[in-house]
Every structure is written in structure tokens, then in C-alpha cells.
């Protein structure tokens, strides 16, 4: 799992080792506060998220799922341990390198979508390209194509407030995919949706996001979506306590 298979340029500023695991965490800790107020949220996490798979991170509220996701995404620095994302030791990146790394390699799907209310669906989906300096028309055209693939061809110029929850999450999904990232992190993508819509979003996520050269990590406590996972990592009290592959998953099928 940790074997180094090749050397490749995954970013424009350095050559890094590319591993079979998109994410590899070893004894990662994260503490907040100091002195008597210090709180340990991650207590030595070991975690793997292979390419070509959808990995679910599940557990009770407060167990550290979102903190681990933030550390993986480079939004929080770990207090201890090692974490490799796409072969890059993210703990060694400077602030600006971390931002560039995220902009190029990561896609985000948020629980509350976090779409910009004044932008149309196509413009929202184009934001990562705009942030990367792609001209507006080309970025919006590219995002429109992707939204059409996600079934929103008729809603390209619609504002988020005029979209249903499921449609907004599809726009968020398009925003996460539009710049072709190699790692997609999703935080409770179905928690604000009804069962049927959540099922449809997860189905779409499985079909369009999971690819051989990409990994998808989903934080959820919605057991109804476990069936979409290739791998499920159970967290409790700041640790990964169990990792399993559901019998009906693509991962398990391939393994068998």
C-alpha cells in the first residue's frame, strides 16, 4: 500500500513521490488550545484513502471526522504525525504552497453547499477555474459542460436560491470536479438532503467522481449511503477504530 510506484509532477513547483494511496496518514494528532484548555481531537490517526476508491469516514458526532478531513485538505496543520496527500507531505508545505496545492489538486463538496448566492449555477461551478486564472468565458463554458453532464443543462443561469437542495449539491459537485482534481473531499454531502435526493447525489458522486487517478473521501454519519463506499473507516474518540469494505461495494467485488 505504501510502495512508491513512480515519480511524477503533481504540481508545478516540485517533483514529489506518487503513491498508490492518495492519502496516507500515520499517527496524526491534532490539538486545539493550550495549557489546561488543550483539547486533543485527533489522537494518533492511521488512515489510508486509495486512488480509484470512495472512502467513507464515519463515526459519532465529535469523534474528529471533520478535523481529520480538514487536516487532509490542508486547511488545518496537524500537531503531530505524518500525512501524505497525493505523495506530498502536506505538513512541509508553506502557506502559499499549501494554497496552490489545494487549488490544483483538491475538490471540495460542503455540507451547506457554500455556493455564492449572486452567481449563477455555471458561474459557481466555474469558481475554481476563475481562482486559477482561467478567463471567465472559458471557465464558465467548461463548467456549463460539466453541469450539463450532471443533468443541469436547463439551470445554468439559475441562481442558487432558485435551485432545490439536490440541484445545489450537484452544482457544488460540479465545482469540485471542474478543475479535474485528484482528490475530492466531501463533508456530509447528503445531510441537508432527503433520502431520495441524497441517494441520487451519492450515485452521481460515485459515477462521475471516482476514477482510477482520483480518490474521494466522504465524511458522513448517514448510514444510508454506506452502500456507495468502497471502503469505510470508522472513527471514535479521535482514532480510526476499524476499516472495512462493504460486501456489495465495487472495491470488495474487485478484491473478490
Amino acid at each position: 500500500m505504501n510502495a512508491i510506484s513512480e515519480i511524477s509532477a503533481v504540481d508545478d513547483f516540485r517533483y514529489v513521490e506518487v503513491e498508490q494511496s492518495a492519502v496516507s496518514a500515520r499517527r496524526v494528532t491534532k490539538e486545539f488550545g493550550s495549557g489546561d484548555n488543550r483539547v486533543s481531537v485527533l489522537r494518533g490517526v492511521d488512515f489510508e484513502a486509495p486512488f480509484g476508491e470512495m472512502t467513507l469516514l464515519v463515526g459519532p458526532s465529535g469523534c474528529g471526522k471533520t478535523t481529520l478531513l480538514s487536516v487532509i485538505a490542508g486547511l488545518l496543520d496537524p500537531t503531530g504525525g505524518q500525512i501524505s496527500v497525493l505523495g506530498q507531505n502536506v505538513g512541509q508545505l508553506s502557506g502559499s504552497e499549501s494554497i496552490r496545492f489545494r487549488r490544483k489538486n483538491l475538490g471540495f463538496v460542503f455540507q451547506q453547499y457554500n455556493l455564492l448566492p449572486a452567481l449563477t449555477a455555471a458561474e459557481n461551478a466555474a469558481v475554481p477555474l476563475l481562482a486559477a486564472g482561467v478567463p471567465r468565458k472559458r471557465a464558465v463554458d467548461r463548467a456549463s459542460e460539466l453541469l450539463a453532464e450532471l443533468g443541469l443543462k436547463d439551470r445554468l443561469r439559475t441562481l442558487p436560491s432558485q435551485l432545490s437542495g439536490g440541484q445545489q449539491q450537484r452544482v457544488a459537485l460540479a465545482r469540485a470536479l471542474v478543475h479535474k482534481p485528484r482528490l475530492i473531499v466531501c463533508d456530509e454531502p447528503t445531510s441537508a438532503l432527503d433520502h431520495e435526493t441524497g441517494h441520487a447525489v451519492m450515485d452521481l458522486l460515485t459515477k462521475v467522481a471516482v476514477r482510477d487517478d482520483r480518490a474521494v473521501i466522504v465524511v458522513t454519519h448517514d448510514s444510508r449511503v454506506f452502500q456507495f463506499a468502497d471502503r469505510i473507516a470508522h472513527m471514535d474518540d479521535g482514532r480510526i477504530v476499524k476499516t472495512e469494505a462493504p460486501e456489495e461495494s465495487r472495491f470488495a467485488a474487485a478484491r473478490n
Partner: protein
Amino acid sequence: MNFVALQMLLGDRAKYLGLIFAVAFSTFLMSHQSSIFAGIMRRTTSQIMDVPDANLWVMDRKTQYFDEVKALTDDDLYRVRGVSGIEWAVPLFKGTPRAKAFDGNFRVVIMMGVDDATLVGAPRSMVLGTVNDLRRPDAVIVDRVGYEFFFPGQAYELGKTLELNDRRATIVGIYNSSAPFQNLPVFYSRYSQAINYVGRERNLLSFVLAKAAPGISDAEACRRIEAATGLHAATSSQFGWQTIWYYIAHTGIPINFGITIGIALVVGTIVAGQTFYIFTLENLKQFGALKAIGVTNWRITGMILLQALLVGVIGFSIGIGMTAAFFEITKNNLDLRGFSLLWQIAAGTGATVLLIVMAASLMSIRRVLVTEPAIVFRG
């Protein structure tokens, strides 16, 4: 990302309009009140600036400003004429007799008496008649304000008469004067005639108007006059500013206008700053999402500054347009003449508005910069 920044701003119509209103209101108040203040200060120097022929003013050393004069003696005029480097010097009288029309309408007027021989100091912007007609008996030249006060609704016509302290005065010319501080009518006559329109005092010479000889600078001429006569000599510009500084230092005018301008500045900054901050707070998660996606702090700072700049430019344009419209609409009102929007005030207000929107955006920028992008993962 500039497009995103502008869409974010324009998309929240209520706050966008609130910001525009705050900046426009502030701009209007600051530029309007500053213009009125500048106009009033300019009015205090009107009779100085309306004398194009002479550029040196000689007066008693204790004279502080134009409207309060300690009379000179006739000898002073001859002493100034005797100073080396002075080409010529003439007397100028300023008094405030009461004028009365034959219908009983009366008003205190400013009476300027100019040199009988040369008429130096007489107005040049004539509407009707000529300055040379001042040489006729009982002749006075009156400004439009005076004429319209004493002969309301009547067409401009020469030959009409008034009483000045029971003496007959015949209007031989009507001219455009710069508005005086007290907005009183301004009359001109010959010096010898003007001193008869006011009550007799021992000395009546208000000022000596002089001109430096060719090759002698005004500053050098002033220095020589002061050294030779012990009087105070100043150029028109220096005397004008001396008068303005008197009003600034000894009246409540600058304080009154300063308070209004200060309130406009504070209210504009607070309202714009508060609205902008609320706008930012409401978009904090969106900014957090942008940071998570990989938008740098520099880029986000640029986005907020662009939003502030747009608000500033539009608000300033509306506010300064309102001020310009006010003065355009009132420019033919004789009581409000002399007030206008100076380019210096427009530029100064623009710079102040820039400071307002920058100050308003600073809190927002700070709030966004300290926001952890991980905030987006908190439901």
C-alpha cells in the same frame, strides 16, 4: 475573481444601495458644505479681488481685515507715492452709508470711492454704462444686487436716482460685482464724492492702492513701503488671505462648517463601515469556501478592496453630481452668487471618500483574513 467580487456586491441589492447611499450622502454633505464655506471665505475678499488695476494695498498697521479699517491720513498717500520703486499710488475709500429709494425702500450699502483722476479701483465688469461716466456730477455705479433691491422688477435703466445720506446719487452704470460677505449692495463713486456720502470724520482715507514700478517685485515694493512709512503693505493676494484668516480665527464660521463636514465624514464612515462589515459577515462562509478552494488572502483582499472602490466611485459620483447640480440650479440666484463647486474641493472630497471606503473595508478585510478556511466544514 474580480467578476466574482463584483457579483457578490451587486447581488446583495439592499446592502449595495445602502453603501452607495452612505457614501453619496457623505460626499454631498462634505463637498456642499466645503463649497459654501469656501464661497463665504471668498466673499470676504470680494472687494479686494474686484480691483484689478492695483496689486498693492497699503493700510494702517493694525488693520486686520478688509471690513474693519482704521483710516489713514492724507499725508500717508503722499508718503507712499514718495517711496522709491512705487510707480503710482491712489486713494481708496470704503464706507457704509444708508441708501434710500424714492419709494422709501432703504438699505445700508458698501460705498467705494475711487481716485477722481484715474478711477483706479473702479469695477470693470459693466452690465450697462461705462466707468468713465463716474466723472459726471452725483454719479454712482451700482451692482445688480443693489439695482434689483432698490428697483425690483424693473428693467436695467440708467439715470435713476437714489438718496445717500440725504444726498442725491444718479446711477450711471450697472455692473457685476463679486458677492460681498454681507451680501450688501456695492456702490462706486469718485473719492471726493464718496466721502461726502458718509458722516464726516477727521480722516477718511481707507486704503492706498499702489503699483510697483517696472523691475520692482511686489514683495520688494511692500517691504520698501513698510520701511518708509510704517504702514502695512500687502499684495492683493496677501491681503485677501489676511482677511480670510481673520474670519477663520475670529468667527464661528469654520467651526460650524467643520462640525457639519466632520459629522458627514463620521456618519459616512460608520454607516459604510458597518454595512460593509455586515455584508462581509454574511458572506464569511463563502469567503471561507473561496479560501478552501485555493483563493489567496491577497486575492480576497483585492476582491474586498475592489468592492469598496466600486462603492466609493459610484457613491462619490452621485454625491458630487448632487453638489454640482445644486450650484448649477442656484447659479442665477443673486443671493447665492459666488458659491460654486471648486475642483480642489471635488478632488479633496474624492480623496476623503477613498479614505472612508478604505477604512470601511479594513475591518472586513481583517475579519476575512483571520477566518480559518476550515470554517466551511462546520455545518
